[in-house]
C-alpha cells in the first residue's frame, strides 16, 4: 500500500456525525489504507464561505494545503465539500500566478507559503484508484445481495469537471462500481445526478425540500431499499429530512441512507451496532433484515 495520507474528516463529519468517521477508519484499517491526523481548520465550506468572501476562502483553503505540504503528504477527504474546496483552491493557485502571489502575501503573516506540492483525494477516488475494486471484494465476508441501492454522489464530487477532473459530472460510475463490489444491486433512477437540495435550504428550506422530493420520488419509483451517499451534507439532507417531506407533501419514503464507508463496513462483517446505525434519523432496521442481522 502506498504511503500514508493526511485524513481530512471535515467539521461536519468530525464534529457532528462522528459515527461516519468511525466507519471510515474501520474500513481504511481493513483495507490497509494508512491515515494520519493533522491540525487542519475548516476547509472552508465551498458553498457558505466562498459565497461570503472568496478571498478569505482561498486563503484558509491554502493554509490547509500548506500544512499538508509542510508534512510532505497528500490529503484524503471524507467529504465532497472539503474535497472540492481543497481541490479548487489548489487548482486556482497553481494556475493563476496573480492570485497565488496575493494569497502568499497573506500567508506570509503566519509564516506559510503555498507551493502546490500536495494532492487532494476524495476517499472514493482513493478506494478505486489506490485500493482497487478487487481488494475490496476480497474483504467482503457478508454478501449484501438483497440490497437494492440508489447511488447519490452529490454535486461537489465531480463538478465542475474542469477542476475536479475525476469520474463523470452527470453520469458518475465509480460509486456504482464500489457499491456493486459488496454484492449489492445498484438500481438506475432518473434523478441520479440531481442535487440533494442542501444549498438551497440555507436560504429557503422549502425550496431545498422541493428539490429533495424530486430526488426521493425518483428513488422510490426505482424500488431502492437503500441509498448510498459520499458527502455529509447530502447524508444529513437525505437521512434527516424524509420525515419533513412526509409532513410537508404527505409522501412516504423511509428508505435508509448509508455512507459508502458504512455499507463497506457492513459487507466486511461489522454489525450495525458496531458502526452505530441506530444514530441515523431514517430507521435502518430494514438493512439488518435484508442482510440477515
Amino acid at each position, binding site marked *: 500500500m502506498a504511503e500514508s495520507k493526511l485524513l481530512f474528516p471535515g*467539521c*461536519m463529519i*468530525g*464534529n*457532528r456525525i*462522528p*459515527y461516519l*468517521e*468511525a466507519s471510515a*477508519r474501520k474500513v481504511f484499517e481493513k483495507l490497509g489504507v494508512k491515515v494520519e*491526523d*493533522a*491540525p*487542519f*481548520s*475548516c476547509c*472552508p*465550506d*465551498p*458553498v*457558505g*464561505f*466562498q*459565497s*461570503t*468572501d*472568496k*478571498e*478569505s476562502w482561498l*486563503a*484558509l483553503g491554502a*493554509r490547509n494545503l500548506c500544512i499538508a505540504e509542510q508534512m510532505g503528504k497528500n490529503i484524503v477527504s471524507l467529504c465532497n465539500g472539503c474535497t472540492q474546496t481543497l481541490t479548487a483552491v489548489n487548482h486556482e493557485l497553481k494556475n*493563476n500566478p496573480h492570485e497565488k502571489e496575493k494569497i502568499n502575501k*497573506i*500567508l506570509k*503573516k*503566519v509564516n506559510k507559503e503555498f507551493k502546490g506540492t500536495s494532492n487532494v483525494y476524495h476517499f472514493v477516488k482513493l478506494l478505486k484508484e489506490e485500493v482497487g475494486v478487487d481488494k475490496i471484494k476480497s474483504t467482503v465476508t457478508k454478501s449484501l445481495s438483497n440490497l437494492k441501492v440508489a447511488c447519490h454522489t452529490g*454535486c*461537489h464530487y465531480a*463538478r*465542475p*469537471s474542469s477542476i475536479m477532473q475525476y469520474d463523470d*459530472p*452527470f453520469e458518475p460510475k465509480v460509486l456504482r462500481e464500489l457499491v456493486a463490489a459488496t454484492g449489492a444491486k445498484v438500481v438506475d433512477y432518473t434523478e441520479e*445526478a*440531481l*442535487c440533494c*437540495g*442542501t*444549498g*438551497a435550504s*440555507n*436560504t*429557503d428550506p422549502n*425550496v431545498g425540500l*422541493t*428539490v429533495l422530493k*424530486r430526488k426521493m420520488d425518483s428513488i422510490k419509483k426505482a424500488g431502492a431499499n437503500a441509498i448510498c451517499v459520499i458527502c455529509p451534507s447530502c447524508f444529513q439532507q437525505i437521512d434527516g429530512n424524509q420525515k419533513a417531506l412526509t409532513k410537508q407533501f404527505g409522501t412516504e419514503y423511509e428508505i435508509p441512507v448509508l455512507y459508502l464507508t458504512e455499507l463497506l463496513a457492513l459487507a466486511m462483517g461489522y454489525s450495525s451496532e458496531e458502526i*452505530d446505525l441506530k444514530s441515523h434519523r431514517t430507521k435502518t432496521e430494514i438493512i439488518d433484515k435484508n442482510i440477515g442481522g
Partner: protein
Amino acid sequence: MTFVPNLEFKKLLLDVHLRDEIKYCYQCNRCSDVCPVAAAAPGRYEPRTLIMASFLGLPQLALGSPDKFMIWGCQVCDTCDEICPNHIELTEIFTLIKNIAVQQGKAPDYYTSQAKTILQFGKAIPMQPAIERRRQKFGIPPEPKCNVDEIKAILTETKLSKKLNMEG
C-alpha cells in the same frame, strides 16, 4: 420595476472574471433548464436572468431586488457551469455577486453567521464536549487542535470582519 444600468458593476464582473466569458452568453436558457433550484422555485431564481443582469450591468436585479433569493437561490451545485455550451463559469460570476451582496449587508443569516463562527473558532462547526465523548466511545482519536490565532491573523489580512460589517 425599472432597473438602472450601472457600468461600474458591469465592469467589475467583466474585469474580475477571467477571459470575459460572460460576453459570450447568447441566452440559450440551458442553464435555467437544468437548474434544480429554478425548477423548484419557478420565477424566483433563474441563472439566465442573473447572467443577463450581469452583462447589462443591473445590480438591483442581480443583487436580489425585490427578492434576494434571485442571487442566494444559487446553491453552487455547478450544474449550469457544466452544461453551458459556451463554457461560461456561471457560479464563479454568482460568487462575485454574492460577495458584493455580503458587503452591502444583503446576505441571508446562514452565510454571515457561518463566517462569524469560522472567524471565532476556525471551523464552521466547532467541537462540542458531547461529540468529544462520542468520538471517544467510537475509539476515534481526539481532533487535533487547529491554530485559531493563525486563522484570525489571516482573516484580519482579508478584512473579513469589515466585509461582514462587524466593525462600527
